[in-house]
């Protein structure tokens, strides 16, 4: 297995001793099949135990290790060393306050997820004894893609609008609302619209589409947001121009 020396330039910030973030460079002997997270783990185990970052699954499903790699939001466990040159710059996810080193403060994102009522609000109640709700594969396909979000927040780091307007509910949370709205078992769209169709909701989105480009799970939040906009516009027309038509 071929080995290559990488200059890993990592943003460091210790809130107890640093007045501002700085960069520290480590020389890391990397195997070509490694991911950037492996290089960070090498540093942690062999060079500098004080380096702080989040990680767990190493298979792109837990969503812990989102970071900026050469300026782009990536999962550290899915950014392959062989796709980079001899120098790699690693920073915490953009648009989030830095807690320490590569660890960011994510409460805002968590609160936004919760704000869209991301749970099934059943169209009709059914006791457990009546069995499962029926849902055909075609009905499942309508929202399946939007269930794949791992909450890694890369889309928030890529979204220029979230950078400018922190109140923006943002791509992942809105796509999650859309996921439940599109679920044939759900009847809760009206309850979600208050947040989803607000000024800080979909209408804040300027449709740059960066969220979908960086999504490691191909969730396509931008597509979801456009669908919400169309549906919300139809709501508006129905309400204002044809008030006799029920939604």
């Amino acid at each position: 297995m071929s080995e290559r020396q990488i200059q890993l330039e990592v943003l460091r910030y210790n809130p107890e001793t640093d007045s501002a973030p700085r960069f520290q460079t480590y020389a890391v002997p990397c195997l070509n099949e490694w991911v950037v997270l492996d290089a960070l783990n090498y540093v942690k185990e062999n060079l500098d135990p004080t380096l702080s970052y989040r990680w767990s699954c190493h298979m792109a499903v837990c969503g812990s290790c989102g970071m900026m790699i050469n300026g782009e939001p990536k999962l550290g466990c899915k950014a392959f060393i062989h796709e980079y040159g001899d120098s790699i710059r690693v920073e915490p996810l953009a648009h989030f306050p830095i807690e320490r080193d590569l660890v960011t403060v994510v409460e805002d994102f968590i609160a936004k997820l919760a704000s869209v009522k991301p749970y099934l609000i059943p169209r009709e109640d059914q006791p457990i004894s009546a069995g499962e709700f029926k849902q055909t594969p075609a009905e499942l396909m309508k929202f399946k893609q939007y269930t794949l979000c791992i909450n890694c927040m890369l889309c928030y780091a890529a979204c220029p609008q979230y950078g400018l307007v922190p109140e923006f509910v943002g791509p992942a949370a809105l796509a999650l609302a859309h996921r439940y709205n599109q679920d044939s078992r759900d009847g809760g769209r009206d309850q979600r619209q208050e947040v989803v169709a607000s000024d800080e909701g979909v209408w804040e989105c300027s449709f740059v589409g960066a969220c979908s480009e960086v999504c490691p799970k191909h969730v396509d939040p931008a597509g979801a947001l456009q669908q919400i906009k169309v549906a919300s516009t139809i709501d508006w027309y129905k309400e204002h121009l044809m008030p006799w038509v029920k939604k």
Partner: protein
Amino acid sequence: MEIIKTDVAIVGAGGAGLRAAIALAEADPKIRIALISKVYPMRSHTCAAEGGAAGVIKPDDSLDLHFNDTVGGGDWLCDQDAVEYFINEAPKELIQLEHWGCPWSREPDGSVAVRPFGGRKIKRTWFAADKSGFHILHTLFQTSLKYPTIQRFDEYYATDLLVDDGRCQGFTALEIRSGQMKQFQAQAVIIAGGGGGRMFPFTTNGAIKTGDGMALAYRAGVPLKDMEFVQYHPTGLPNTGILLTEGCRGEGGILVNKHGRRYLQDYGMGPETPVGQPVLKTMELGPRDRLSQAFWHEQKKGNTVSTKWGDCVLLDMRHLGEKKINERLPFVRDLSISYLGMDPVKEPIPIRPVVHYMMGGIHTDIQAATPLPGLFAAGECACVSINGANRLGSNSLTELLVFGRRAALSAIAHVQSGLATSNDAALAAKAQDSENRIRALFAKSQGTDSIAGLRKEMMHTMEEGAGIYRTGEELAKTCDKIAELRQRYAGIALHDKTSVYNTDLLQALELGSMLDCAEAVAVGARDRTESRGAHQRLDFTARDDQNFLKHTLAYYHPTEPPRLDYLDVVITKSQPGVRDYSGAKK
């Protein structure tokens, strides 16, 4: 130290912890619930489970069949009353999850689909493509957001249980973000902290799986049960240990050696079945312990394929075709291409067995109660035991639902049983002891051993002594080594002296948990002089029901190896018999 008072506190917010929290919130909106986890809930390792969750739902299946598969699969070390409770509750829990929105894969008529899994006579594994655990975890997390009484404490690491007046009354925890210690006072505590596969070097387990929940109970005097039973999953990617689900074989994937032979037929799982037409409980649909053991023999015979990542066998899924692989196994395809550079649609994938799951854990009864009043446990960290000596694939996702809920109901009953007022001064003194312990660890800087160095030595000796096949001699060495490492742990150096998000300190604490649990594994394995399920001894090759139809109980000692005791297995209707995985013969 700040005191947080609650009614029920849950340590761990993966599948079992979240299920328990929701059950508490639904049972009584007046109950105060504190849900503590060292990570944000959706980072929990439940997310990495792929294949599915077992529960009887189809007309051709029955509770008896699920019972027989589970008990035989566990080599008769399961407690049969617990298994019966489990299989009865299983379908209800899976339907409940469906009602909460879990995107289960479907049949054309809109009913939930089931797939074949290893060691099962009938198809009964509910699945959401090959991200079943991920969808279960996110469905539970999102559903939990409905309940205002669930108060989350994300990124808190529980350090010591607080036991006074003979019952568990809370714990201390480190707020990772600030480095401050907090005292959680609760009338009942549920531990749902997951397994500890990270004590081994090659594992499907994420970095967070360090046995903290097990160690928390163990150090408070609660025994760990059947820790010597460690499951190797037969199909992991050889370079990273990333799991390729048993669903690969359930859908029809085959295992071949370097001669292209489907070698499982040589290990009592044949005769060979037609390619692409898997026969239940036969060949590739044998149980995990048998498949992993067959690999070991193939390796000894020189029949494995040598790759730059070591010896492998091949998982061939090409005959399934691109359409089926994309529909049923999209994650497997993505993982193989991304991390190995090989596409299962086009080529066989080299794989080898990898540490995956711990059958053992915190000793609980069928109510999810531990011997310590006020303390309950559920999920991988617990041992009820429904898994016995070898867990069947897709029983564990269901287990964390069934026993997560069961733990919640037991906790409520305990809280409502009229408990005496707690002695705040006594609890405060114990919390102070805990803080002092953490402060002392934090202050260590003159030590000679590094955390990473000790961890490597631990992993190495566990693989050497406590792997797929074991001997008394190797296990004795591993026991000595772990005992030595536990002593040297007192002399580790901590370099990070920052309070905020100190992962050096966290890793030191996690290493402590793993060493304690690893010793219970090694000592339990050394003294179990028989072969059963996932515990195979080259020096005691037969199952010994006369002496070992028993659970091992390991009791903690701060400086010595654990004291072992044994407990009879609960047998209700199935006497120990022969495990037969040659269904095609009939």
